[in-house]
């Protein structure tokens, strides 16, 4: 499509600054008189702090100040919070231990924050940190997810004496048991959803600044949601009231969930700025990021699915253990519960589902939302068990899926969600055609001739995006509403600034949001600026995560545009001397019905501010409108990914030979950007399936704390992807958007493992399916074949 409106492949407005080195990331910001912070971190997974001696370090060159947990306590700086209350099966609240920004009396993971050294230069801060003497009382660590709650284990938080955070469930247990009693076939699987480290390429950073004259703080930070950061730092941590705290998240170099959360380091930087009377800057090095950024996933699951004699699914029961690490991060408790279990129905008509989730503390980094957050874990469970069931029943995996697809909408699942619209078969059919599934058998024979094992795997995923109706999530334990805000400011010359509570850190909002506005108002896209990421400019917002910025953030803009258009029509009626009811607005022109009288948008904007054509009694001058949009339902993007892989049994190397994705994201604003989101998500999912994994040793030391040890997907690990779409517009928001940001990461791990197990001929492979693991599995397959 030509032009710049909805559906056009518009080149990104933000790109110029990024390709010319003119971006403005937090580390690029330097304040007059700035100092540098370095965090002394715990080398132990679990220890008491008997004493901290900073006297020698404090006397070292360049040191401006050293702060510890004792200072936090003295200044009554509140602890970091978890904003989602989960209740146990018995109705009691989850057990949350305190989370001070600097450790008080105890450290609970390697990388935990013991002290901060603030110095003239970073090198001086690092040198001084080495001179701090900490007397630790080492405690036995709890590292293993499976045994974390064993009786007699060391206790990580007194508030949780058996290291259990909660024991939660969802669904109808009795109905599910009854379904299993009727079953002709039951498929059982055990799965591990491996722990990942998000690894946005920009490490976290923060600059805290305090203006003593105004008694006001400014925090520059790498955040996906600066307003939520301000809310938490103000209302819970108590840095300053909101009107005395400005949070700016400038260009942010990727987030993937990991920059949603409010961390110790930014809290300390903004607090310390007042303490030392100078700006305080901290930039994580990559190892610090590995150690202390919130990790993702880390589930162990046993699942069982019941089927009748015709291969119809009767019921599903799932038991999951989730590792939340040493402290409850900002939204951690919601990930293995309400972002997970409500998606266990997948694309299938499953009459009865019962899920139990036990979340535990361990002496490892906190675990929270990472691209997909709960939904990749749910998809991995349902898409693996469906695949295994089809294989056990001797049915074609695509046919088995088709047989069990939900075909009528709306569809109420047994686990909260009411799917509004979809056409799952359309995506499957299109994906199979594009992929040439028919030619797979021939390709497999050719691979076999070359001594290679070829496999094909499906993943028919669904996710819940457009997060979320505020009252609904409130009833489930969320501490905040999940609406979004927008303000459309029309300038007297007809250019437009849109202030949004969404935040762009790679998603291209400056382009897609401008496409919407330019198209709607009939003005050139160059005349639209998108303003985000500054709490002094944008009044309030909930930020960007959960693929919500199109479905929720743009819906707020639509609401504000509706108001702008209504007001502009009033202005135009005075300009054109006609009744308001007779004014039409189309292609940037206001016209009087049935006449050739018209006036363009820019002229109406000017008249709104000159205010010569109407009196104050008739109309308020100006053209600026705001709106809050609270969604009425989740959105349900879905689709089918097909992975085709080839294994060299001699080396265990798995090559992704072919990848097809057909997604239904509803209405798409900019296909180029949406395809880019899918590519990146697939890469992260392939990474999870065959490369990535965060591993701790038994002592709680992170073994994968650099790019030498943690296998990030590189260009030669991946193929080019075939990405296409089907469309059922979302009925619950004005643009029909469902959201696209996480789909790739949600769909792809199951497709990969289904393909690898297809090639191997057995189900025993865990993620990451590294060459060594695949080689072992392939040798077992070959040995069995030789018998």
């Amino acid at each position, binding site marked *: 499509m030509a032009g710049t409106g909805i559906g056009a492949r518009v080149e990104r407005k933000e790109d110029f600054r990024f*390709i*010319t*080195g003119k971006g403005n*990331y937090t580390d690029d910001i330097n304040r007059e008189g700035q100092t540098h912070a370095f965090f002394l971190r715990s080398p132990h997974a679990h220890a008491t702090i008997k004493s901290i001696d900073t006297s020698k370090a404090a006397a070292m060159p360049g040191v401006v100040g050293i702060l510890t947990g004792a200072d936090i306590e003295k200044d009554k700086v509140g602890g970091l919070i978890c904003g989602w209350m989960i209740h146990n099966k018995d109705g009691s609240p989850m057990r949350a231990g305190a989370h001070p920004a600097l450790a008080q009396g105890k450290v609970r993971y390697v990388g935990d924050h013991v002290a901060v050294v603030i110095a003239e230069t970073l090198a001086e801060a690092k040198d001084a940190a080495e001179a701090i003497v900490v007397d630790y009382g080492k405690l036995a660590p709890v590292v293993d997810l499976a045994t974390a709650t064993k009786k007699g284990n060391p206790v990580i938080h007194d508030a949780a004496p058996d290291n259990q955070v909660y024991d939660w469930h969802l669904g109808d247990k009795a109905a599910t048991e009854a379904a299993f009693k009727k079953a002709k076939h039951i498929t059982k699987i055990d799965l591990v959803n491996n722990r990942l480290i998000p690894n946005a390429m920009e490490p976290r950073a923060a600059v805290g600044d305090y203006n003593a004259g105004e008694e006001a703080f400014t925090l520059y930070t790498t955040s996906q949601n600066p307003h939520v950061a301000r809310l938490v730092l103000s209302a819970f941590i108590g840095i300053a009231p909101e009107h005395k705290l400005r949070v700016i998240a400038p260009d942010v170099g990727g987030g993937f969930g990991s920059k949603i959360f409010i961390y110790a380091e930014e809290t300390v930087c903004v607090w310390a700025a007042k303490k030392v009377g100078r700006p305080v800057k901290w930039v994580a090095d990559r190892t610090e990021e590995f150690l202390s950024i919130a990790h993702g996933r880390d589930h162990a699951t046993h699942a069982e699915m019941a089927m009748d004699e015709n291969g119809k699914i009767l019921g599903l029961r799932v038991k999951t253990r989730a590792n939340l690490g040493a402290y409850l991060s900002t939204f951690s408790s919601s990930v293995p519960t309400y972002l997970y279990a409500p998606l266990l129905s997948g694309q299938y008509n499953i009459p009865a589902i019962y899920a139990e989730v036990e979340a535990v503390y361990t002496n490892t980094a906190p675990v929270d939302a990472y691209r997909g957050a709960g939904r990749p874990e749910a998809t991995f469970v349902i898409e693996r068990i469906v695949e295994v069931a089809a294989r056990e029943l001797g049915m074609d995996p695509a046919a088995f899926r088709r047989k069990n697809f939900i075909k009528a909408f709306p569809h109420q699942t047994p686990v909260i969600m009411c799917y509004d619209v979809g056409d799952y078969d359309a995506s499957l059919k299109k994906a199979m055609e594009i992929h040439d599934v028919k030619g797979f058998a021939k390709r497999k024979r050719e691979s076999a001739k070359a001594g290679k094992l070829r496999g094909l795997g499906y993943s028919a995923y669904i996710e819940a995006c457009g997060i979320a109706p505020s009252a609904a999530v409130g009833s489930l334990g969320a501490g905040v509403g999940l609406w979004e805000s927008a303000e459309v400011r029309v300038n007297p010359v007809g250019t437009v600034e849109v202030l949004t509570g969404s935040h762009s850190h790679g998603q291209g909002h400056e382009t897609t949001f401008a496409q919407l506005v330019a198209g709607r108002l009939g003005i050139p896209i160059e005349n639209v600026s998108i303003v985000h990421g500054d709490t002094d400019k944008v009044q309030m917002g909930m930020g960007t995560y959960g693929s919500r910025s199109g479905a929720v953030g743009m819906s707020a803009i639509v609401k504000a545009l509706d108001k702008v258009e209504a007001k502009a029509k009033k202005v135009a009626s005075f300009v054109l001397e006609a009744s308001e009811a007779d004014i039409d607005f189309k292609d940037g022109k206001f016209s009087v019905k049935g006449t050739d009288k018209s006036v363009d948008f820019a002229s109406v904007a000017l008249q709104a501010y000159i205010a010569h054509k109407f009196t104050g009694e008739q109309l308020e001058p100006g053209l600026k409108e705001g709106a809050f949009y609270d969604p009425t339902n989740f959105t349900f993007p879905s689709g089918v990914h097909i992975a085709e892989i080839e294994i060299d049994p001699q080396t265990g190397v798995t090559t992704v030979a072919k990848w097809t994705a057909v997604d239904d994201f509803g209405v798409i604003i900019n296909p180029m950007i949406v395809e880019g989101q899918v*590519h*990146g998500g697939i*890469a*992260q999912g392939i990474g999870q399936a065959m490369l990535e994994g965060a591993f701790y040793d038994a002592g709680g030391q992170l073994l994968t704390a650099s790019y030498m040890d943690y296998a990030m997907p*590189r*260009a030669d690990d991946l193929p080019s992807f075939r990405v296409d779409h089907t469309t059922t517009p979302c009925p619950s928001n004005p643009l029909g958007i469902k959201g696209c940001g996480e789909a790739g990461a949600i769909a792809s791990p199951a497709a990969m493992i289904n393909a690898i197990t297809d090639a191997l001929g057995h189900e025993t492979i865990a993620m990451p399916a590294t060459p060594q693991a695949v080689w072992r599995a392939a040798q077992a397959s070959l040995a069995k074949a030789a018998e």
Partner: protein
Amino acid sequence: MPKVSMTVNGKRVSANVDSRTLLVEFLRSEQRLTGTHVGCDTSQCGACVVHVNGKAIKSCTTLAVACEGAVVTTIEGLANGTELHPMQAAFRTHHGLQCGFCTPGMIMAAVDMVNRLGYDLSEETIRHELEGNICRCTGYHNIVKAIQAGAAAMGGMKVAAE
């Protein structure tokens, strides 16, 4: 503190620096050229790639004093005034960037790739040559397309100039 002098983006610069100062620190802090980024500390990610004497290097593992007298080009020096370098333009046209953090290093590495291997680069060559640059956003799909197109455009410009 030793004095170091070099030519950065065509400009002679010099400064007294702590001898442990890395080239990337010299560029970012001393020269305020913040387009060159630091994404790791093990010389793996490539966000810091600049050209020294015409060759791509990782400025996070190069001492500033080791670049005495060198000619350094950073992402800020690639465009000819307001006219983008063909590789920069190709990254925009082919959506070869999302968050933009790895992009300067990617573009500098890509130009170096063309300088070494020519204008006709296969997908396989590009993917192999990108082993020193990590991107977390794009899945590399559009970066590969951008580099292929950027290389061809650089070739076209050379032909046009001849």
